[in-house]
């Protein structure tokens, strides 16, 4: 299982998302310097089909493709798009230690004045704390450390080659001390073996104790080779739980599982995490970046609607209701005029005329506007 690096020079690096991915990472762009990861966690969604393209999932952790011109491409491509949050870099060992492409990309993000969001497992990120602080001073930085749980037994079974849990928590602490907004993504929460109150509470309190201010919880997704490998890891750990997972993901032998667990399960999990967060003075969502200037109000309003979609998910509301808020949030987020001005000039009718908003959501928008900027 020797490690190979394959250097190449792609033509493009920046992924431009149609919409911000609220209420999760609030990002509009992403750019990654490496494909493949030495950690090779069994449950990693990146092993699943639609992320890996034509690459062989079996070499995910032994063949690391290195985009040598990552920083140069990013510099060129960021110059052509409006400023918004970018998810950038990958501090995986040993690739980043050898190539330092993520650091070079941070320098570009700093020069262009883009707000930055990082989701990471590697403590190597701390080496670039100086740049993170500079970006924070100039715009905004949010960091999420990915820690599924703090159970060493589960780590060894599902992610034996990932960076040590203690090192990750130390990194959270160093970021928090440096004034960087940091939280932990409890993903994936492993059904039946890592989703109980004790596992969740242990990670949430450790996050708080190390200076983190929020957690983001997410269940395990299952797809293709990743699903098979994850189930095999469970079988090696505790074969008595295999049938529970098969049932949860409606996974018949010879067929493929559901991509995610049932809504009732996901909702229960989210509500438990929310309750624990409230108990321990933490947030279960990450506050978003609000740009300076008159359009910041639209971002705040969209944030409220995006957060509402999450509340409705937890309440197991019908999909059409969730989508109504999501689509309205997209409109609000991208609207070119400040909506508080639109409202003050045209009233609720002007808000209702916005695409995907309508009368009822216009009323809610008006309430949000009043709350954000109470009148004289």
């Amino acid at each position, binding site marked *: 299982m020797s490690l190979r690096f394959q250097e190449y020079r792609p033509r493009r690096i920046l992924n431009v998302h149609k919409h911000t991915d609220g209420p999760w990472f609030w990002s509009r762009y992403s750019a990654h310097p490496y494909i493949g990861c030495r950690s090779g966690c069994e449950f990693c969604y990146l092993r699943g089909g639609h992320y890996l393209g034509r690459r062989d999932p079996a070499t995910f952790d032994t063949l690391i493709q290195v985009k040598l011109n990552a920083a140069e491409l990013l510099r060129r491509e960021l110059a052509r798009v409006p400023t918004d949050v970018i998810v950038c870099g990958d501090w995986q*060992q040993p690739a980043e230690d050898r190539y330092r492409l993520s650091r070079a990309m941070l320098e570009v993000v700093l020069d262009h004045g883009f707000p930055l969001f990082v989701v990471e497992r590697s403590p190597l990120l701390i080496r670039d704390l100086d740049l993170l602080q500079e970006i924070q001073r100039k715009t905004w930085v949010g960091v999420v450390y990915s820690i599924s749980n703090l159970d060493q037994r589960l780590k060894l079974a599902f992610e034996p*080659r990932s*960076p040590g849990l203690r*090192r990750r928590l130390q990194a959270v602490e160093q970021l928090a001390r440096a004034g960087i907004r940091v939280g932990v993504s409890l993903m994936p929460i492993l059904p039946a073996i890592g989703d109980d109150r004790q596992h969740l509470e242990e990670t949430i309190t450790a996050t708080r104790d190390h200076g983190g201010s929020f957690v983001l919880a997410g269940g395990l997704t299952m797809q293709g080779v990743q699903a098979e490998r994850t189930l095999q890891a469970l079988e090696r750990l505790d074969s008595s739980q295999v049938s529970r997972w098969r049932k949860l993901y409606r996974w018949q032998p010879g067929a493929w599982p559901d991509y995610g667990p049932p809504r009732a399960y996901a909702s229960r999990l989210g509500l438990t995490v929310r309750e624990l967060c409230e108990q321990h003075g933490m947030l279960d969502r990450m506050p978003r970046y609000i740009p300076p200037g008159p359009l910041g109000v639209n971002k705040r309003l969209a944030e409220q609607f995006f957060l509402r979609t999450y509340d409705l998910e937890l309440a197991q509301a019908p999909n059409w209701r969730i989508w109504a808020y999501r689509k309205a949030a997209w409109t609000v987020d991208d609207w070119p005029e400040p909506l508080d001005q639109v409202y003050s000039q045209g009233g609720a009718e002007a808000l209702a005329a916005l695409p995907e908003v309508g009368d009822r959501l216009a009323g809610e928008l008006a309430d949000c506007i009043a709350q954000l900027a109470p009148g004289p």
Partner: protein
Amino acid sequence: MAMTITDECILCGACEPECPTESISEGDTIYLINVETCVECVGHADSPTWVAVCPVDCIVKL
């Protein structure tokens, strides 16, 4: 007599608690072995204990 950790170390930390002479410590980018105190586990085990636990085989003889 000493071992070393190559730059293929992925910072998993599995080796650290296994070392009988506490010769392994965290470096910034990889774990490090103190060559002054490393005895290659002679007197403690038949072969260096943490070579066996390293998931990426990055611990080698100097």
